[in-house]
């Protein structure tokens, strides 16, 4: 079975050859994997090297995005997009179907209290411009524009509490 993974835009094609060997971009490794005392804890021995790893799934904002895992390894955190051949095809198909996608939604990255809206509808913004200030745990956090564009609509107002993942502003 073939799997497609992507880390920071770099592609790694992983193929499971049998129950103790696999290949990554054609390079063959001997492996042994055991789940630890937690479902997200794995001990992986790869060509004799022992790796402790913690793996969590990341909730996607968009339904059409590929499933993503966070892999904690030797103190580094990697976000790994990971899918098998079949689901990759299915997802690509689904992505075409819903081409009016969700780009431009400014989402609350954490729960908190809206302190200030820094923009007005119709205003032009650049990527990285401050849009909304949300307070969480006594800290003020400026939520910035993920892209340039025009502020289409504002969905929150000052003093309103927001949940993680809630739409704050739509940028066109």
């Amino acid at each position, binding site marked *: 079975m073939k799997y497609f993974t992507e880390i920071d835009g770099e592609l790694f094609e992983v193929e499971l050859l049998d129950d103790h060997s696999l290949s990554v971009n054609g390079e063959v490794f001997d492996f042994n994997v055991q789940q630890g005392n937690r479902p*997200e804890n794995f001990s992986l021995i790869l060509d004799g090297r022992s790796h402790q*790893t913690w793996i969590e*799934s990341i909730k996607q904002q968009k339904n059409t995005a590929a499933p993503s*895992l966070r892999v904690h390894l030797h103190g580094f*955190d990697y976000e790994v997009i990971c899918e098998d051949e079949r689901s990759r095809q299915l997802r690509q198909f689904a992505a075409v179907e819903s081409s009016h996608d969700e780009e431009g939604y400014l989402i609350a*990255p954490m729960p908190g209290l809206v302190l200030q809206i820094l923009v007005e509808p119709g205003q032009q913004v650049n990527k990285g411009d401050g849009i909304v200030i949300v307070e969480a745990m006594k800290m003020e956090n400026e939520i910035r524009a993920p892209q340039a564009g025009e502020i289409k609509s504002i969905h929150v107002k000052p003093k309103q509490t927001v949940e993680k993942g809630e739409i704050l502003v739509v940028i066109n």
Partner: protein
Amino acid sequence: MSLFKRILIANRGEIAVRIMRAAAEMNIETVAIYSDADRLALHTRLADYAYRVGPPPAVESYLNIDRILEVARQSGAEAIHPGYGFLAENADFAERVAAAGFVFIGPGPRAIRDMGLKTRARQIMKKAGVPVTPGTESAVQSKTAANKVADEIGYPVLIKAASGGGGKGMRLVEKPEDLPKAMDAAAREAASAFGDPQIYIEKYLESPRHIEVQILADHFGNTIYLNERECSIQRRHQKVIEEAPSPIITATLRKKLGEAAVAAAQACGYRNAGTIEFLFDKNLNFYFMEMNTRLQVEHPVTEMTTGIDLVKEQIRIAAGEKLKIKQEDVKISGHAMECRIYAEDPLNNFYPSVGQIRYLNPPAGPGIRIDSGVYELGEVNVYYDPMISKLVAWGNDRSEAINRMRRALREYHITGVRSNIPFCLLVMNHPAFVSGQFDTHFITDHFRSEDLARGPKELKKVAAIAAVLAAKCQVNPSAPSENGHYEISPWLTAGRQSSLR
């Protein structure tokens, strides 16, 4: 003189736990206060007695003076330790504690009040001969006056809130034409953050280091310094990594600095443990910045290098004991490094990361100390500081301390919430940090969030393999639960995990 039988800790989290540990070792009983969000918190469970003080928001619980004093009476406590944050630097609280007949484990209200007002603190220090940064010793009343001062001391200048701290109500001004606008903005911010719009001006040091001195003072006129802590690694004026001793301080300079700190403490009639923060310029000239009239977050690095338990000393001093330690007894043994481990996402602009701690595997082994207030399956919530723990590594020298810290950071695993561990590791590996040549701009100058995900090329391959095998093993990565975690019963696994630390 006998110590207390029972003390109340008016705080929560790691510092409450830390204080309780010292008290337990002195055979003093402890009283915890808890909000509804902390019924199962470590400090609530570790204390001998625990009393509810109110709902989760701090104003209704940990800042609720009336209720805390009521609990103190009910519980039969003789003294109150405020920890840091919350009411620790509230002079009114210290006053009311004393008026209600309890001992406040900390300085007197006058010292708290004087040092809390930055302009007053500057006046006192200047009078005592402690160097302060050039600037005003009282609030600036007009833009004309401000202009004159700024011209005299030279740009760039800093506008600061007289009642301020933590970077709020602070503005950097590079040129005269920006001054009026910056003054208005700083005053506005100061008014909303501290209820006091007064501002003052001081010279801005270009690439300063933040170095502070720990002092202890008893009620018999003895004041000693326990050497310095280097706290230049900061993000948005918040310390992230601290160490002792500072890599740039020589024995001669340490003595000069220590004596200045003692003079500063004596100038405000200080009792108990306190910290004088100094700014160092490139030529190793130092200037008084402010005094923190409480136990500091980073106190463990001093404890690890001097062997002195600061909390026990605080309790002894408050109970009226004489300092047993003489200045000449204070030695430096090895080097200690502290990383503040926060529940925040370094890949996402360091936003706080709230949620349930699913898995917690703290490091252990030689030379490692962890002061933690969290526990597995506990929640990191929006009400309080997002600090998970303080990880402290001790080594025979700085390089061993750094290597030990790296090792410990790699052993530390937390899932459920994001943490700044990868960020701390990046700092520990950075040549500028390792060389000891850095200033308070270190993070702005050197940190690029993409470096966090970079890692060695070989590791990426391993990460890809691990992801595939994990996905195949049993979990269904396309169906995380509402908060992004796997659906499993926490109760099944909780029993398997080792007991609370």
